[in-house]
């Protein structure tokens, strides 16, 4: 039951807020309460798990491998907790926005939180596909919003490319079922021990990984991301941009690191792809001047780090990937929320049209600096520890080009962040008559919550690194897939 709670709570709250007629503010308040309860439930799940243990729940009254299994190990429980915390921050932030759309978005955000938790819990391939579809549906609702033509256009591009991705997942799941007769993760892992089954699965596994790379936003397949994210309102952007690509990267890590034996050549290719993804994202961000575009393109470069951690294929690299994913969910979402506050205060997202925020909003400037340093990886911040874990593993495996590339990308990230700092905060506002807009208290509370989490994780990283190592200790043990 403890296993189901983090999934059932937001799902029930989503239905409640969608079906019952209630005032917009009440709906938003219910959203905050539901997110808070989800945080508590996820925390209870994580603390109830013994170190390295795994809870499993088989639904449908059939024994394994026929029943539908939901399972939580330390990795999934920790990621559910982080996504719930992000959900809480986003719901709090929405409280400060008194418009029709924020209230209407509450059930969809709760639905997104529920489906993300379910993806983390899913222990069979078809269930995974279904929850990916539900994630897509909730995200589409959030993208369309009030239906203004720009949002519809963004939703259309997002829909076409992501629907292709989920259809590829479905086809790959069907083919894997045809080749092995299994859908359950553990059963697939066992079936993969036979070399002839593993060889038969390989082309279909390739299709599945390709579809997940599209969902994660890897190099040639990320066109949907800059086409849709830059028109979203800040809380939606923080939730969608903070979570979705990371969820796909988690599934890649789970499947490649624990379930299937991935050939070494593919991992080699993935490493180079990761490097190119990092560079493409960060160079795209360097060109742009719109804060939301800069941050959205940085998602792509951060996904590159996660893919690098998967390509390094060792328990230590998997721990680094897990830590980096947690860091990135929190920091990226926080930066999106801060971008929303910059807009509320200065009146535009484009850095050429704003300025003077350091004088007008010193607290906001400090909060931005803390998150920006974390994203760049200045010690001691979460980004530093995450990159340190990944880079140490890269250099230990003598992958000097991958590690060096990741360091160079860090420098270019610093360039983008200092551009936002210099143009948005430091220079005077181009319109001398502009007055600073009002920032609601609830929005500040949301940003302070996330910043607090980032600071704790950065200044006192040891328990979190230990947790990441425990969570991923049995990854990459399924035998080498040559």
């Amino acid at each position, binding site marked *: 039951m403890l296993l189901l709670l983090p999934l059932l709570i937001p799902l029930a709250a989503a239905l409640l807020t969608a079906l019952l007629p209630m005032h917009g503010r009440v709906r938003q308040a219910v959203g905050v309460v539901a997110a808070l309860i989800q945080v508590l439930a996820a925390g209870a799940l994580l603390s109830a798990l013994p170190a390295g243990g795994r809870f499993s729940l088989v639904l449908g009254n059939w024994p394994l491998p026929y029943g539908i299994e939901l399972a939580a190990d330390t990795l999934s429980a920790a990621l559910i907790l982080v996504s719930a915390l992000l959900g809480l921050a986003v719901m709090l932030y929405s409280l400060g926005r008194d418009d029709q759309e924020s209230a209407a978005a509450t059930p969809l955000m709760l639905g997104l939180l529920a489906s993300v938790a379910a993806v983390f819990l899913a222990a069979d391939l078809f269930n995974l596909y279904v929850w990916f579809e539900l994630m897509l549906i909730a995200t589409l609702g959030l993208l369309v919003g009030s239906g203004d033509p720009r949002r519809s256009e963004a*939703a259309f591009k997002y829909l*076409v490319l992501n629907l292709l991705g989920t*259809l590829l997942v479905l086809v790959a799941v*069907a083919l894997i079922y045809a080749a092995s007769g299994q859908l359950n993760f553990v059963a697939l892992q066992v079936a993969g021990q036979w070399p002839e089954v593993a060889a038969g699965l390989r082309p279909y596994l390739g299709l599945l990984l390709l579809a997940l790379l599209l969902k994660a936003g890897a190099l040639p397949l990320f066109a949907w991301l800059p086409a849709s994210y830059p028109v979203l309102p800040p809380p939606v952007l923080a939730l969608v941009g903070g979570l979705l690509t990371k969820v796909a990267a988690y599934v890649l890590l789970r499947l490649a690191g624990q379930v299937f034996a991935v050939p070494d050549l593919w991992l080699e290719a993935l490493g180079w792809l990761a490097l190119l993804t990092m560079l493409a994202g960060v160079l795209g961000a360097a060109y742009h001047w719109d804060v939301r575009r800069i941050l959205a393109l940085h998602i792509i470069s951060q996904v590159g780090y996660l893919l690098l951690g998967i390509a390094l294929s060792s328990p230590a690299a998997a721990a680094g990937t897990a830590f980096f994913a947690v860091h990135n969910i929190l920091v990226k979402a926080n930066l999106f929320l801060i971008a929303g506050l910059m807009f509320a205060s200065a009146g535009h997202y484009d850095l050429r049209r704003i300025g003077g925020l350091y004088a007008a909003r010193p607290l906001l400037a400090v909060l931005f600096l803390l998150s920006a340093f974390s994203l760049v990886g200045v010690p001691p911040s979460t980004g530093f520890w995450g990159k340190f874990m990944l880079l140490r593993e890269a250099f230990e495996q003598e992958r000097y080009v991958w590690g060096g590339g990741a360091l160079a990308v860090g420098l270019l990230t610093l360039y983008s962040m200092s551009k936002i700092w210099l143009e948005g905060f430091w220079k005077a506002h181009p319109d001398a008559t502009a007055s600073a807009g009002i920032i609601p208290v609830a929005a500040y509370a949301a940003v302070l919550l996330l910043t607090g989490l980032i600071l704790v994780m950065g200044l006192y990283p040891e328990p979190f690194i230990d947790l990441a190592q425990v969570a991923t200790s049995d990854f990459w043990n399924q035998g080498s897939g040559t």
Partner: protein
Amino acid sequence: MMLMLILSLSVLVAASVLLILSRDTLRLVVGLAMLGGAANLMVFLAGRPGSILPPIIAAGAETLPSAAANPLPQALVLTAIVIGFALLCFSLVLIANLARHDARQDGDDLRAVEPEATDPLKPPVMEP
């Protein structure tokens, strides 16, 4: 039977790829729906099609008759059809909404989120 299924699957995939590559938004959506149908057919093909014997254990027997149909792909396809139908309806409303602002329904006209650069060095400003 198997040959018929494979042939129709191939025709379906070929037609949907042709439609998806079109710039017309309606054709694109129809192509995606057809590809969804092809994917469902693929799931169906994955699980030993051909038998029409229902997968019910007869009274007194302990196991299924070995020629019984495989119920799992049917359950999977049913789920996938429901989701695919919902997404098809949604995308039709979406392109209808887009068509109100652009009667040509040309995919190349969808540049509002990613406006073309006019300056050689700097990106255009997008009003919030």
